[in-house]
């Protein structure tokens, strides 16, 4: 298992390769990459600053990954989240899940992202031409996380 919070970029291809290198039991790797868009709520976005709660962030991510591992039979998980100042086109987050079969990998990957969105202590501030604004949490993210409780 790999959980990292970092300012620097990551290489999704290398992260995916690492999830199955030398592991012939792995039959599926599902991954998700979250990126900075240049448009949000109708306004152009020129920068995105990610703040976090350092003492809590990794602990919170580890709990989310532990829950996924308890729920599905997974062989490995990688979760990387960037913090600091980012720009449109930049990568923000990587989730990679290795399992024997695709169903578990797909489901766990989505579960980890849905829980991260509602539980992990990160906050986004967008820079738009001439101003800055904190991104508001979306009710749809709560709904997405709720469905895993059924």
């Amino acid at each position, binding site marked *: 298992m790999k959980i990292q919070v970092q300012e620097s970029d990551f290489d999704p291809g290398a992260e995916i390769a690492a999830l199955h290198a030398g592991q012939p039991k792995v039959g599926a790797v599902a991954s998700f990459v979250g990126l900075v868009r240049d448009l949000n709520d109708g306004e152009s976005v020129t920068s995105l600053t990610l703040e976090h*709660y350092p003492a809590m962030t990794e602990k919170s991510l580890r709990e989310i990954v532990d829950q996924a591992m308890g729920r599905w039979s997974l062989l490995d998980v990688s979760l990387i*989240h960037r913090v600091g100042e980012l720009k449109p086109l930049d990568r923000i987050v990587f989730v990679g899940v290795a399992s024997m079969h695709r169903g578990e990998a797909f489901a766990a990957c989505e579960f980890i992202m849905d829980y*991260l*969105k509602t*539980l992990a202590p*990160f*906050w986004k501030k967008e820079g738009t031409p001439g101003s800055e604004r*904190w991104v508001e949490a979306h009710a749809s993210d709560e709904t997405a996380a709720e469905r895993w409780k059924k």
Partner: protein
Amino acid sequence: MKIKVLYFARLREVFGVESEELELPGERAYAAAVIDMLRKRGGAWSEELALDAGYRMAVNQTLAGLVTPVQDGYEVAIFPPVTGG
């Protein structure tokens, strides 16, 4: 008892403070006592920490609620709903 309070993101900016130490009466209390004390400051404090204001809390780096116990040396964090990912 003395506790440490941290503020993040929009609330850090609105309150104009990143962290502070608070002295509360007694040996232990609920997190609600911390919120009550801060709300009494009025202005942005009473608005942002109103029951329906939507703020979130963590006690010792774990998401918490108003009935989470706090005691001497604990760390309480107050922040807006998270928006990572």
